[in-house]
């Protein structure tokens, strides 16, 4: 029976997606067909969710079918392990919910102020691509073979990249498609390298044995495997600075944004991270690098997220921050919580996205509900993240549990030596754990703020420019303190300092915003293709026209010139010819004499 459910889970979305896409490409879809398409997609994702649920309830079973494709790659099998099924269930159900979100009627446009009707238009091709991506993603989750998983990931990547092409304007669409695919392909390249090295070591592409063989690899090969996998995960989950491909999703309808861009690839990445976590512990140096990089990225994206007034773009940074946390968990060896993170984050992302839509629409009757739910989500996220950080602190890599050691150490007496010992022995030092805790509170708090806006019926705040929301609170708070001090100290130096702080913070935030967001690695990634093209043009000019070709042309010219010179000497005027004849005759005579004539 599991074979039937599995086939349903993959084939129903696949065939429906192909049918919808084919219908869209070969006919101009009228509005009625678009509605049919919407509800068909909803039904298909619902069915797929039921199939996944049935598989989860059936428990782990052997899958009766397998596929042999490439020579020497072995048969591609499916694996119905619990974690893969849970990941597939979370992702499939999220697809259903995201489509449901698209189908919740919004207030009629005539009742809305013009600025607020900015919800991106629902488009049929993006729904078709969503179904195709779902089929590919479920194949990837349940594949027990690396080749099967790679193919599924590639197809999912192509489908995701095609969304801008089929839904946006003719100038932006191709550009963004190219960008998204190229970035996702970087991750797939890493995955390919890791997978091929493991295949070489294990002699099989079955995921379990291949990963187990990683332990027997030599240092450099193991390093390449880990680098390849981590790169793949890093890109897919959209950790900094690879969150840029997810930003493209902001321009699409809720389903494409919330699921195709914000859910499916990050979930695939998290599941891959879950599988490779044991490998990370094999290479301490790389493990420490992953921790440092992910933490640095988390701090940066959290700052950026705080600077975003609108929740919609902030969702990408939330993902990026959570991704950094996931990488930390993996590096610390907390494998189980990665799947929990996947399961918890999937509905929360959708909730935040839906909330951000509805809160922006003042006329919506759902506004208060959305505000309350978003706030609750924020609290849940804060609590969950705090739990993750606590779990992180419990790992063997923070040698002494943070709280226990603090209690044992007392407040003053031996604190410093103990803290020093912890810092020295820990892979993740305690200040980092504290920093993490601060970050997770900030991330969750971001949504509490939004909830407050909705629940208190405040007007929607202007979108741009986006000042630091926390700064406004600080501003108000400091203003009140300053007013109190004015009464006490009169107007003086202290007042100027205090009132100047908010402005300084704001300026700092703006500078940081412009420096980080439109600079650094994101900018490098965005401009790399152009830089490569410019470099290629320069190389082309220097090597093709002035270098190789120039040298060869010069040589050829030299040879021709020499030939012409010789030829002139031979075929010049008669006297010159006779001179040559005379010289040749002399040479012949000389040779004959030398030969003994």
């Amino acid at each position, binding site marked *: 029976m599991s074979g039937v459910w599995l086939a349903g889970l993959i084939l129903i979305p696949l065939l429906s997606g192909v049918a919808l896409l084919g219908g869209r490409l070969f006919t101009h879809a009228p509005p009625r067909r678009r509605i049919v398409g919407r509800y068909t997609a909803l039904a298909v994702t619902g069915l797929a969710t039921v199939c996944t649920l049935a598989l989860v309830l059936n428990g782990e079973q052997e899958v009766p079918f397998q596929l042999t*494709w*490439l*020579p*020497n*790659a072995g048969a591609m099998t499916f694996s119905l392990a619990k974690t893969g099924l849970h990941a597939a269930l979370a992702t499939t159900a999220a697809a259903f919910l995201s489509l449901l979100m698209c189908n919740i009627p919004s207030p009629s446009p005539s009742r809305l102020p013009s600025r607020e009707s900015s919800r991106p238009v629902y488009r049929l091709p993006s729904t078709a691509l969503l179904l195709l991506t779902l089929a590919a993603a479920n194949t990837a989750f349940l594949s027990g073979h690396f080749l099967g998983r*790679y*193919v599924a990931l*590639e*197809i999912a990547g*192509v489908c995701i990249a095609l969304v801008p*092409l089929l839904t946006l304007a*003719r*100038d932006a*669409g*191709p*550009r963004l*498609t*190219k960008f998204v*695919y*190229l970035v996702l*392909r*970087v991750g797939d*390249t890493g995955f*390919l*390298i890791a997978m*091929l*090295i493991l*295949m*070489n070591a294990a002699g099989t592409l079955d995921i379990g044995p291949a990963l187990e063989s990683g332990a027997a690899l030599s240092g*450099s*090969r193991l390093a*390449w495997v880990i680098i390849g996998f981590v790169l793949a995960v890093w890109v897919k989950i959209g950790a900094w600075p690879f969150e840029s491909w997810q930003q493209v999703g902001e321009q699409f309808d809720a389903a494409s944004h919330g699921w195709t861009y914000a859910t499916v690839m990050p979930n695939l990445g998290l599941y891959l991270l879950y599988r490779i976590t044991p490998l990370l512990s094999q290479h301490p140096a790389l493990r420490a690098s992953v921790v440092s990089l992910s933490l640095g990225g988390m701090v940066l994206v959290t700052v950026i997220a705080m600077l975003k007034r609108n929740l919609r773009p902030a969702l990408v940074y939330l993902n990026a921050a959570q991704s950094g946390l996931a990488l930390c968990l993996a590096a610390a060896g907390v494998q189980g919580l990665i799947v929990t993170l996947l399961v918890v984050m999937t509905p929360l992302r959708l909730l935040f996205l839906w909330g951000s839509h509805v809160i922006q629409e003042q006329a919506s009757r759902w506004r208060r509900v959305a505000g309350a739910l978003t706030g609750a989500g924020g609290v849940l996220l804060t609590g969950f993240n705090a739990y993750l950080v606590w779990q992180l602190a419990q790992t063997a890599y923070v040698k002494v549990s943070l709280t226990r050691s603090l209690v044992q150490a007392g407040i003053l007496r031996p604190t410093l030596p103990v803290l020093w010992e912890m810092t020295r022995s820990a892979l993740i030092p305690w200040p980092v754990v504290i920093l993490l805790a601060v970050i997770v509170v900030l991330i969750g708090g971001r949504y509490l703020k939004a909830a407050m806006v909705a629940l208190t019926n405040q007007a929607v705040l202007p979108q741009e420019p986006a000042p630091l929301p926390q700064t406004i609170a600080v501003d108000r708070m400091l203003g009140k303190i300053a007013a109190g001090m004015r009464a006490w100290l009169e107007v003086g130096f202290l007042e100027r300092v205090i009132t100047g702080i908010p402005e300084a913070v704001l300026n700092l935030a703006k500078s940081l915003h412009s420096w980080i967001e439109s600079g650094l690695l994101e900018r490098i990634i965005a401009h790399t*293709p152009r830089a*490569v*093209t410019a*470099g*290629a*043009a320069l*190389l*082309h*000019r220097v090597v*093709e026209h002035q270098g*190789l*070709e120039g040298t*060869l042309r010069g040589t050829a010219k030299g040879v021709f010139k020499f030939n012409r010179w010789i030829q002139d000497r031979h075929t010049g005027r008669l006297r010159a010819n006779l001179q040559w004849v005379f010289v040749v005759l002399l040479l012949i005579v000389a040779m004959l004499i030398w030969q003994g004539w």
Partner: protein
Amino acid sequence: MALETLALLLVLGAPLVTTLALFVLPRRLQPVARWLAGGAAALSLAAMFALIPALRRGDVPAIALNWMPAAGIQFDLRIDWLTLPFAITEGAVTLLAIIYAWGSEANDERAPYFYGLLLLFAVGMAGTTLADGMVLFYTFWELMLLASCALILVWGHTSGSGPSRRAVALKYFIFTHLGSLMVLVSLVILYNATGTDRFSALRAGVTLAPGIVTTVITLFILGFCVKMAIFPLHIWLPDAHTVAPMPVTIMLAAAMLSMGAYGILRFPMSIFTMEQMQPFAVPMMILGILSEIYGALMALAERDIKRIIAYSSVSQMGYILYGMGTLTYNGIAGATLHVIYHAIVKALLFMVVGLVVYVTGKRNIDEVGGLARRMPVVTACAAIGILAIIAVPPLCVFDSEWMIFAGGLETPYVTLSVITIFGSLLTVAYALWFGSRIFLGKDPAETTDTTLGPVSDRAPTRAKLPLAMVAPSVLLAALAIIEGVFPAPLFDWVAHELPMLLGGRW
């Protein structure tokens, strides 16, 4: 006469006799020239397929005729598993290029000569693969060069600022002939060592001094690398591919380049053992990587759409050389598969470029755009070609690249393999840029031509394209999918060749 012997004779005989007939064709029969050429190419291809059952039975179809008995030189033809993939690729490409020429080339009074020379070019390539003697091999090798050079010289298209077709033909001749001379020197050394020109003597083993072995292998590899257009020996390729008429370009890129790969497999890798070839592994891999990356960078820098695809060949040949350089089962099998898949995809992309030039009359990528609405079928073919060349599964090139990369990672040089795999991202970059600029985005004419009224009012008019040009493109696009999804039969052919290489290592 046995059926196999007849088939083997037909492979070369049908196009050769038709060539002679075309050269003396009366003027009133000139319209049938293209049909004759197509028929001959189809017959030759069919004869190749007819030889497969004999190979499967374990037979090796061969013909031996006396040619120069005093020198011990014979006219020997033979087909084996190493020959088969290359011969069939060449035959299929010739047939499709001739059909494409029906639509792209004028059917004027020079047409019989054009088709005659195309067939002669094909005879050169088929003969190179079927020859079972060194002299015969070299004769067909040079025939291939002469015929293609004549086609470029007489029918080449030059743009105003570009080099003249005479200059291009001369450059093409000199460069590839230089490579041929290197091959010739090696062949003469082998002839002196064995006292016969027959390949069977070479297969039996050649005893040479170590220094001579190094010289012979080096000259073979360099000579065949010229034909493969490996960086920095590729200088002839961009101009020749650009100036040649499109059917000739298709044959040059999709079939003739692979003759270099065949040469490396047939000579150094068949004659010498793994131990003798080992010192050349890393240089071949490095040359392959350089070519892969350099070709892709040049493709990114080019503006002429024909030259972009031409540089793409330099890059793709880099993969093939890299695969062969790994000296592993997967690497060599992948390289041979890549020759076939590259032929499919490159012929497809050049056909697409030909159709774009046919419709727009432009070759500068900045002057074309938004053609998807005018040429939907061609766009679909181009999309398949582009996705295939960037190795998106389950299209064909993925299979061969997979094997090449797997072979690379079996060697101790993991870093080289990682560079190759990351280098493939450049292929993604130029292929997507190429496709999106030509078929998607805005047509530059829309923004500049104000006489046509507002852009939104202009309905896209479907371009009328000759069926002879579209049909081969569609067929190749379908093949790119079919070969990708069902690689096993082709791999089965290739797997048979491997025991013949590197002293029967596999």
